[in-house]
């Protein structure tokens, strides 16, 4: 059932109001008022979301709320309205986005204390929450796109928040531009859909898809192009390069935008349009493969990184890859499920890393940490819980969601056609290997940071933990621990899948590959057992290398020097892009300016005739008098002559 309401608008609008107040008057209001306005607007917005979602939850996801605010762009056949929808899918997103945002806003009070740009920080952060809520609530693709580009802008502003640092500002710019590349794909995808369906509203597109109006070619092209947009926003190969650099922003920003919410927008978009993807098997296969490969590839880079935030950044890229495997193999709810649990544990991990960095006055190199377990108790335990979750150990949340994805990939492989079957199997295998690597690099991180002997610089004094930063960690760790049980299908709990069924179910059932999932309880347990086994292997290896024999990693790195350097330098991808794309474009542009514009057009075309005449001597003086009237006169005469001839030749007179 669809209910009309007028409250949905206020969910995004409140944070926007907070952003405007803090942005315009924040410096005069003082830090206390700024924190209050920032947190309160997001908090109330979260509460509104809760109130609004009662109907959705009460109906077990069957009902939805819609609000059409006003007609935005109306011309010719185009009619786009600003309208929002709260259904089973967006309700999850609103809860996650507003909830995690609120927690991180509170955490930021402690983390950003005393920063000169305090008000600006909260204004940007609120603006982000606004954009993200517009993105998830948008009832048509253009409104979704408004949020989509809006979060990109906030990401840009917040990565370069400490703009006096050239590198940080540069990282922000890189993020924006790489995202823009993806956004062009998104735009063209929209154009294709509009051309074929004549509408861009989600309902309209669904009707068009259901009635068979959209050909497979159209669907495949549109889905692939939209996925290009997702690759930009959600940092998948080949557009992932901005995310590791994005760690230049304040750590709460990394937690909120670059881990928990914004980067999952691509996954959300695919789930939102699942009814299109399920009809485009080729596009879905690409999604699954790119996701699987990114999961594996980014995990491998995570092994060698030394910056605590960089490890987490590559881990985010990798985990997003899992989500795309989920939505790529047609298990849309599993992708969204992992999106949710990931928001909990990854936000907690980032905030934990922030607490460490804060305690060590800015140190981010894990080789210069160690033994922090005792001094940072809250941080350690919450970090450990989240690590267990991301590594996929039961009964923590990540275990259930990641396993759901892997299981769906595997179980669908045997039932799909041979091509799709291989794709799913390959995605599964990459995911499985990545799971082992994930456990390894995450426990490497834990051991190097919190265990063993302290390798701290003697000059560094470890600050004690701040309460306002600790309780957000606790809440998130709690969610990371138990949040997975809403979809613990191993134990027969299918709450998450059932709840989202009204939005994702149909697509899930019609996804070609998923017509039949294997329904063997034993096989499912077996697959889960295998996942846990590989995770244990990763954990054991990390324990052996970083606690038992801490001198071995160095030796391995030296033994395989070239391989190590290749991975440590992130496969030189940034450098390759620079050499193959950026530099040639730059050189070409200079050529256009200096040669085509200045030498050819101006030199020959404009100044050339004048110079030529100057050589003719006496006559030339007449033309080169610098007197405009004379120029004009001769030009007039010449052109008239030419034209009269033309007219004569054309036989007019």
């Amino acid at each position, binding site marked *: 059932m669809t209910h009309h309401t007028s409250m949905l608008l206020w969910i995004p609008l409140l944070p926007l109001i907070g952003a405007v107040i803090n942005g315009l008057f924040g410096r005069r209001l003082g830090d206390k008022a700024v924190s209050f306005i920032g947190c309160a607007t997001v908090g109330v917005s979260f509460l509104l979301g809760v109130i609004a979602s009662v109907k959705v939850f009460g109906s077990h996801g069957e009902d939805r709320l819609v609000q059409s605010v*006003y*007609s*935005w*762009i*109306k*011309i*010719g*056949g*185009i009619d786009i309205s600003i309208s929002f929808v709260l259904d089973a899918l967006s309700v999850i997103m609103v809860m996650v986005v507003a909830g995690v945002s609120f927690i991180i806003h509170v955490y930021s009070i402690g983390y950003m204390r005393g920063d000169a740009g305090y008000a600006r920080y909260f204004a940007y952060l609120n603006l982000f929450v606004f954009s993200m809520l517009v993105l998830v609530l948008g009832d048509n693709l*253009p409104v979704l*796109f*408004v949020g989509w*580009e*809006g979060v990109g*802008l906030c990401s*840009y502003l917040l990565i*370069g928040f400490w*703009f*006096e*640092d*050239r590198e940080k*500002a*540069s990282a922000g*710019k890189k993020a*924006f*531009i790489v995202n*823009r*590349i993806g*956004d*062009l794909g998104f*735009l*063209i995808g*929209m*154009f294709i859909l*509009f*051309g074929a369906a004549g509408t861009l509203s989600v309902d309209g597109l669904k009707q068009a898809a259901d009635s068979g109006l959209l050909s497979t070619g159209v669907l495949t092209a549109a889905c692939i192009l939209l996925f290009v947009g997702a690759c930009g926003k959600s940092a998948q190969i080949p557009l992932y390069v901005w995310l590791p650099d994005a760690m230049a922003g304040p750590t709460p920003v990394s937690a909120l935008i670059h881990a928990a919410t914004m980067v999952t927008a691509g996954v959300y978009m695919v789930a939102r349009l699942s009814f299109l993807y399920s009809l485009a098997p080729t596009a879905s296969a690409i999604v699954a493969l790119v996701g699987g490969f990114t999961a594996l590839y980014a995990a491998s880079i995570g092994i060698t990184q030394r910056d605590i935030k960089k490890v987490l950044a590559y881990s985010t890229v990798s985990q997003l890859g899992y989500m795309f495997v989920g939505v790529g193999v047609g298990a849309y709810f599993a992708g969204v499920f992992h999106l949710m649990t990931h928001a909990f544990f990854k936000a907690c991990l980032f905030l934990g890393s922030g607490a460490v960095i804060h305690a060590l006055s800015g140190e981010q190199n894990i080789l210069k940490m160690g033994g922090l377990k005792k001094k940072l108790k809250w941080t350690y335990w919450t970090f450990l819980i989240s690590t267990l979750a991301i590594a996929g150990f039961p009964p923590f949340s990540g275990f259930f969601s990641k396993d759901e994805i892997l299981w769906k990939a595997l179980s669908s492989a045997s039932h799909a056609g041979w091509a799709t079957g291989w794709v799913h199997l390959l995605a599964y295998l990459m995911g499985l290997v990545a799971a082992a690597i994930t456990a390894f690099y995450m426990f490497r991180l834990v051991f190097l940071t919190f265990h063993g002997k302290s390798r701290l610089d003697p000059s560094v004094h470890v600050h004690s933990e701040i309460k306002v930063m600790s309780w957000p960690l606790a809440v998130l760790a709690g969610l990371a621990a138990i949040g997975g049980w809403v979809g613990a299908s191993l134990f027969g709990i299918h709450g998450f899948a059932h709840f989202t069924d009204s939005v994702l179910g149909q697509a899930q059932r019609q996804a070609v590959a998923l017509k039949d999932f294997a329904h063997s309880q034993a096989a499912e347990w077996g697959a889960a057992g295998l996942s846990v086994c590989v995770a244990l292997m990763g954990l054991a290896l990390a324990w052996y290398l970083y606690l038992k024999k801490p001198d071995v990693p160095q030796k391995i790195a030296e033994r395989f020097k070239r391989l190590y350097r290749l991975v440590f330098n992130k496969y030189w991808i940034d450098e390759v892009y620079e050499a193959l794309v950026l530099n040639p*474009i*730059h050189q*070409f*542009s*200079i050529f*256009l*300016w200096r040669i085509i*514009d200045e030498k050819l*057009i*101006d030199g020959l*075309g*404009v100044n050339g005739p004048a110079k030529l005449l100057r050589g003719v001597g006496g006559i030339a003086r007449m033309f080169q008098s*610098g007197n*405009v009237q004379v*120029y*004009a006169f001769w*030009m*007039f005469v010449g*052109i*008239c002559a030419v*034209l009269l001839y033309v*007219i004569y030749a*054309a036989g*007019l007179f």
Partner: protein
Amino acid sequence: MDLGFPLLSLVLWLPLLGALLVLLVPRSKPQIARNLTLGVSLLDLALALVLFFLFDPDRTGVQLVEKWEWIESLGVAYYLGIDGISLLLVVMTAFLAPIAILSTYKAIEKRVRGFMFSVQLLQVGMLGAFMALDVFFFYIFWELMLIPMYFIIGIWGGPRRIYAAVKFFLFTLLGSVLMLVAILVVFFTHYAQTGFYTADLFQLYETSLTATVQLWMFLAFALAFAIKVPMFPFHTWLPDAHVEAPTAGSVILAAVLLKMGTYGFIRFAFPLFPQAAVWFTPLIAILAVVSIIYGALVAMVQQDVKKLVAYSSVSHLGFVMLGIVALNSASVSGGLLQMINHGISTGMLFLLVGMIYERRHTRLISDFGGIAKPMRWYAVCFMIATLASIGLPGTNGFVGEFLVLIGTFNSEALPIVFGSEAAGMVLAAVAGLGVILGAVYMLWMVQRVFFGPLKKPENQKLKDLTLREVVVLVPLIVVIFLIGLFPNLFLSKVERSIDAFIQDVRERSQLVQMAVVDAEVPDADR
């Protein structure tokens, strides 16, 4: 609605009155000249807003018409009228005038009266060109714009102002003269066919010209307009003119004068010679896309902020032209909206560049860095203008670009004239690259100017915006968001006019028949 009151004339001639009044102000009282001009322009804006609200969006054709015979024997008339398209351009012209004038309060110190006189005369020329429906009357206004602009660049401009002014003058004059000849040809051909003289644009639309003549005449008009737009490869006057022009000159040049070119295509070149227009569409479409990419790439490597913004205009106007030739309601209205948007955003960027130039007497990107710190609000305004310029959703730029691209992508006309199904899609996709490049050159410039360490001592002492500057910028910011969030306010005014334009061109160019023929006749016949 026809008022029985010459509102259009009032809007048109008020600045002339202002110009004459300025001459009466004693030379020693420049401030009075400034305030007087500002007051007149504000009054003119108020009248233009009345115009905006009086305009009935549900009526097709021109409104508020004023027509008096002038040279009866030649059929030349004092003939004014506006449709939705000219309405928006008139309102934008009137809106930017007080802003441009207020921006000169500190910048123009010498010959203030002369400057104020020129600006107002220019205003008359621009408003008249948008309102005139008699071809000779139009031509007079068209030429009238040229002279004050020439002086504005040549007298109040930068160090290379003479070169720039002459270049501007010659480029534009070249086009004007060709256009005049073409006007004469149409005028006399019409006489030959009907036996009476008229310079009424709508009657001249009906002149039947042979295909060859149409092609040549279109070419003459198109060249005049393409230079104004400017389209590649006729654009090289623009960077020079902009760099040397004083701020207010750049604002008016970018915001209004360039639109004369695009407006000319819609009002004159296309409806007068529809068949030729369609014949030339592939060329224009390709040049438009080349302009988009070329302008963006060259903007990327500029070292002078103002030159960068100037090249970005080439890119932005390419979108407008692409929208026009794609010839459907989305693309053309997007193109029209981009004309307005470019006026607002690029106008604002030029104003901002002028403000920093007044403080530092340099515009070289490398002379700055980190100035977001001493100039917080300046940086905020610059960022907003940048975002509007690169078409972020929520700002005006997005709506225009979106409509142009979606219209081009799904254009019915482009596949016919190119003879390829994919023509619109390819053009839209390539033009879309311009959207990416736009972000690259603007953000790269912003980064080098505003971010990074604040090293130079002269930058550390920079003062933030003054109250006057805030007053200059805030209306622009309001309009950026107004168009971005409520574009229907404006689109609804133009929808009828644009549909009429499209239908007219399609029918008289036989594009419709071409489509039918394409569909029905097998390849063997072609």
